């Protein structure tokens, strides 16, 4: 069997970017869309082929490395541009290209009336290239290239409608906050290189147990720095603040970048470095606690948001917290499993929200929606599937992955984390059904104008919704629990996660306990759903009275715990003041002063020299001859 061409998968979107740039608007909208979707679709097919080729190999041999070229070499430091396909990256490329392709198709309809149609698809393709580079890289440096690339595309796409100041501001915020995380990633990478001597994943993970003492300071610091990078990219406490603002971008972007793919890069990175994290139990503990805290914290904020996309954004932050929680308790495959199912149903939720926003002429406020279920039947149906999936009701995808995370947390002895996770699940179910009810049920609160233009989206937008709905429904079945030797998804990832020397198999739970845990998590979801139904559908006045009774709590949640304001006062303003001082004194007086002084001096000298530039050839010839005479004189005296 011929080896699959791994490098072609990221190369296709890059080629599409080049063509977008070269051909420009000559392609027309149809051509642009065809090129963009075609490239990603072809990448998906190639990824499928590569994964099948990988699956055909014996389990112990499921690692393909394709070295394209040597990137740089300096002394004994050398980095290749090379791609690594193993079961972990296989899952990632399938998710990225598959969900990415559906979102590309959806975007054709969503962006049809936008003037910058081509720019949008150019950025999307560039993002696909960067994301695929990130997940396929076989060394830290190439991964960092993808890491920065997706950050750049995220910035460009959040600020896509840059003529809106809020969008430009949000893009800037995302960029700056991500810089902090990237800085951590870079430092972690350099630490690993300084001690491990290589940036190649395979080699570094092989030498890691010999170089780093288990639980030692160096590995703990290095992994914590890496995790700082992950919190930036994957919007965890303390660096989550950019993601809700990132909703300023077009909705397909929110679905692709800020729900399904880019924000999961942090989880992927932690899972990829599981060997290192297992060597640093303290770091793992931090990951679990931060993940659990974020899961609950973001979920509570999501309770009180009225912007449909912001609710989903906080939900994304919260779900990402669950993934980190899984990684932190050592259940990396559960984290990746949840990453996959989440990318299905969260992409679906965002696309559905986009469809609603589209139908309501860009209305995003839940308070001006309602009773849309009959008017937007397709959107409603698919959204319902996604909502049920995220609340974790069986047999939908979210149930299997979330249940696995919670039971892993329980099994590993992290009862606190497990409790927080269950609480988060209740809240998740509650706010998701609040969103669903406010949007699709109850009485219509639409503005007259929106009512006029109300229409179901075109088929090209509905089709991806349906595909994603099917995936959200059945995508979790690969992780069917209660199977001897683990379920299919776990067995697939096992060669990646169980090779490490520090690997300790999780404590097996008895079937009784496992059933009990399933019951708890389902009950949690049902409680959340029932509360939401009771409060928002049956007796909306209860919700109002509750809101007034706990007004202070509500204010706290509506204002997102004043975290943005706190950061503004504690970090942004002092920094701004300091920068202002730097500007007014250091830059204007010292730097500009020096530069201006040099300029004035040159200007004065030039004013004299200018007299010699007459423009007449004769004058120049005279000076030339004088110069020759002077040279000859020099030879005469010293020759």
């Amino acid at each position, binding site marked *: 069997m011929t080896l699959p061409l791994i490098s072609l998968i990221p190369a296709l979107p890059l080629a599409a970017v080049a063509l977008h740039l070269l051909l420009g608007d000559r392609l027309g909208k149809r051509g642009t869309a065809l090129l963009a979707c075609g490239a990603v679709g072809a990448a998906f097919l190639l990824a499928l082929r590569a994964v099948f080729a990988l699956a055909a190999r014996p389990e112990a041999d499921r690692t393909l490395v394709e070295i394209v070229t040597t990137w740089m070499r300096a002394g004994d430091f050398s980095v290749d541009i090379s791609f690594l396909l193993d079961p972990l990256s296989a899952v990632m490329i399938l998710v990225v290209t598959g969900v990415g392709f559906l979102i590309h198709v959806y975007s054709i309809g969503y962006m049809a009336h936008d003037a910058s149609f081509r720019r949008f698809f150019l950025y999307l393709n560039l993002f696909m290239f960067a994301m695929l580079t990130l997940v396929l890289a076989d060394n830290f440096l190439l991964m960092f290239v993808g890491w920065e690339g997706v950050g750049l595309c995220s910035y460009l796409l959040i600020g896509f409608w840059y003529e809106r100041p809020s969008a430009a501001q949000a893009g800037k915020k995302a960029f700056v906050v991500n810089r902090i995380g990237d800085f951590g990633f870079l430092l972690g990478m350099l630490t690993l290189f300084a001690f491990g001597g290589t940036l190649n994943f395979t080699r570094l993970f092989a030498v890691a147990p010999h170089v780093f003492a288990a639980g030692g300071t160096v590995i703990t610091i290095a992994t914590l720095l890496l995790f700082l990078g992950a919190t930036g990219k994957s919007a965890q406490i303390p660096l989550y603040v950019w993601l809700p603002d990132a909703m300023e971008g077009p909705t397909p972007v929110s679905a692709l970048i800020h729900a399904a793919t880019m924000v999961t890069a942090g989880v992927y990175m932690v899972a990829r470095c599981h060997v290192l994290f297992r060597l640093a139990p303290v770091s793992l503990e931090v990951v679990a606690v931060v993940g659990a805290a974020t899961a609950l914290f973001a979920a509570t904020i999501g309770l009180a948001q009225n912007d449909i996309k912001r609710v989903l954004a906080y939900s994304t932050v919260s779900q990402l917290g669950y993934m980190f929680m899984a990684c932190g308790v050592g259940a990396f495959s559960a984290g990746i499993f949840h990453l996959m199912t989440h990318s299905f149903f969260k992409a679906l939720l965002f696309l559905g929200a986009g469809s609603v926003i589209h139908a309501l002429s860009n209305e995003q406020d839940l308070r001006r929606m309602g009773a849309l279920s009959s008017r937007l039947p397709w959107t409603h149906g698919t959204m319902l599937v996604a909502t049920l999936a995220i609340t974790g009701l069986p047999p939908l995808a979210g149930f299997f992955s979330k249940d696995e995370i919670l039971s892993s947390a329980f099994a590993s002895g992290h009862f606190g984390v497990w409790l927080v996770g269950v609480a988060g699940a209740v809240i998740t179910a509650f706010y998701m059904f609040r969103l669903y009810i406010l949007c699709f049920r109850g009485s219509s609160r639409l503005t007259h104008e929106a009512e006029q233009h109300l229409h179901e989206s075109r088929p090209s937008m509905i089709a991806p919704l349906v595909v994603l709905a099917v995936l959200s429904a059945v995508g979790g079945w690969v992780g069917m629990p209660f199977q001897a030797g683990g379920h299919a998804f776990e067995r697939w990832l096992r060669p990646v996660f169980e090779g490490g020397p520090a690997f300790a198999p999780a404590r097996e739970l008895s079937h009784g306990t496992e059933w009990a845990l399933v019951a708890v998590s389902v009950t949690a979801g049902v409680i959340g759903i029932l509360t939401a139904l009771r409060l928002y559908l049956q007796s909306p006045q209860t919700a109002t009275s509750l809101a007034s009774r706990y007004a202070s709590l509500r204010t706290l949640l509506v204002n997102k715990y004043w975290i943005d304001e706190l950061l503004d006062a504690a970090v942004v303003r002092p920094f701004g003041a300091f920068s202002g001082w730097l500007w007014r004194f250091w830059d204007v007086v010292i730097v500009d002063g020096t530069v201006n002084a040099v300029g004035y001096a040159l200007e004065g000298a030039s004013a004299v020299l200018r007299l010699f530039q007459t*423009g007449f050839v*004769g004058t120049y010839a*005279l000076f030339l001859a004088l110069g*020759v005479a002077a040279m000859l004189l020099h030879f005469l005296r010293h020759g």
Partner: protein
Amino acid sequence: MSGVIPLSWSLALSATLFVIGVVGVLVRRNALVIFMSIELMLNAANLAFVAFGRSLQSLDGQIFVFFVMTVAAAEVAVGLAIIVNLFRLRETVFVDEVNLLKG
């Protein structure tokens, strides 16, 4: 051979010719005459080449003269074309009436 020309004589002649060319460039304002003076300077260099080649008993000097002549031919053609164009534009060949080089 009754007498061989001393090298210094040829060099002195070459220097004289060169200086005459320099003076021509400096004192005349007609672009064509300036051009002819430049040709004089080139020929002075050629004379020096040949004289040194003779003194060192090498052919290389003469080969270089050949190349200089080729370059001179190309230069004359281009230069004269420029002068013709200048005359068309400004109705003059006097270099002190043209100061396009002034920035």
